[in-house]
């Protein structure tokens, strides 16, 4: 008879868990290294940042044109004037800003919810059949002086046993990878020093 307990015990759960945990740990290290390399790229990638654009509105009175392009006059023969507006734009000096300063952070990833699933199917069938065939034949003959007889018998016994046992198994492993905020120790700190008052320094970190 099949021993389900023994079959389950033969599944190398410990090795499977170790292999999976080991693979996850190696992948995590590789991902972290990649994200740290990305911090360097972001810290060295600069673009020209324009901090401000000043738009100044100034009045621009102008006469209104009438028919045929002639100035429109009011009842006192004074030209009709509307208050227009002129916009003058001053673009502030640009300065290089790194992507990290600007607010682009590297994504860090973390494995969560790792699952190992083992499915096992054990099938056992037993079939036995016996057949017994017994036969007896009697013949007898008699004449004037002699008499004879014969008895013959046969026994046929057939026995057959069929036994089948199969175990099929499958396993699946799954894990979830989620983006997480950058660990503080891996991100640089920003020191903001006001040149007009160097005693005031603000420190920030992504």
């Amino acid at each position, binding site marked *: 008879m099949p021993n389900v307990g023994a079959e389950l015990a033969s599944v190398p759960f410990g090795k499977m868990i170790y292999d999976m945990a080991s693979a996850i740990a190696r992948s995590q290290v590789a991902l972290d290294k*990649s*994200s740290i*390399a*990305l911090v360097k*790229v*972001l810290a*060295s*990638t600069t*673009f020209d*940042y324009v901090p401000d654009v000043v738009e100044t509105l100034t009045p621009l009175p102008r006469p209104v044109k009438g028919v045929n392009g002639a100035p429109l006059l009011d009842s006192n023969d004074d030209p009709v004037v509307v208050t227009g507006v002129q916009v003058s734009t001053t673009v502030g000096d640009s300065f290089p*800003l790194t*992507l990290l*300063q*600007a*607010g*682009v*952070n*590297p*994504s860090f*990833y973390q494995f969560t919810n790792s699952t190992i699933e083992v499915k096992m199917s054990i099938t056992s069938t037993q079939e036995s059949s016996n057949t017994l065939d017994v036969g007896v034949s009697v013949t007898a003959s008699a004449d004037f002086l002699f008499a004879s007889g014969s008895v013959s018998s046969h026994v046929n016994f057939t026995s057959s046993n069929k036994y089948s046992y199969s175990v099929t198994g499958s396993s699946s492993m799954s894990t979830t990878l989620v*983006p997480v905020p950058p660990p503080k120790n891996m991100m640089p700190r920003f020191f903001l020093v006001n040149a007009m008052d160097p005693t005031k320094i603000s420190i*920030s970190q*992504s």
Partner: protein
Amino acid sequence: MAMQMYIVAFKGQFSQEVSRGIQHRIRQNGGYILMVMKTGVIAALDDSRVPQVESHPDVGLVGGVTLNPRGYAADRLQKVFAENLSKQLDVRIE
């Protein structure tokens, strides 16, 4: 999987040809160009298409990035990204 924001850094020196080639590869793989810089491109890309972009000979590194709202120019970057994205989106009204 999902669309994420990536920085695609160039391998060597910047050139228009290299930049265009990489942008073309990103677009071919269903990605969107959010910002172009001299050292790389910030793009929105499906996770499953990252290897195809990474295999471009002029790509040095592809890494996921996020926008930190507390960044010095995060709001400006967000506007730039949105503006560039809107130029590439094909909106169909039926």
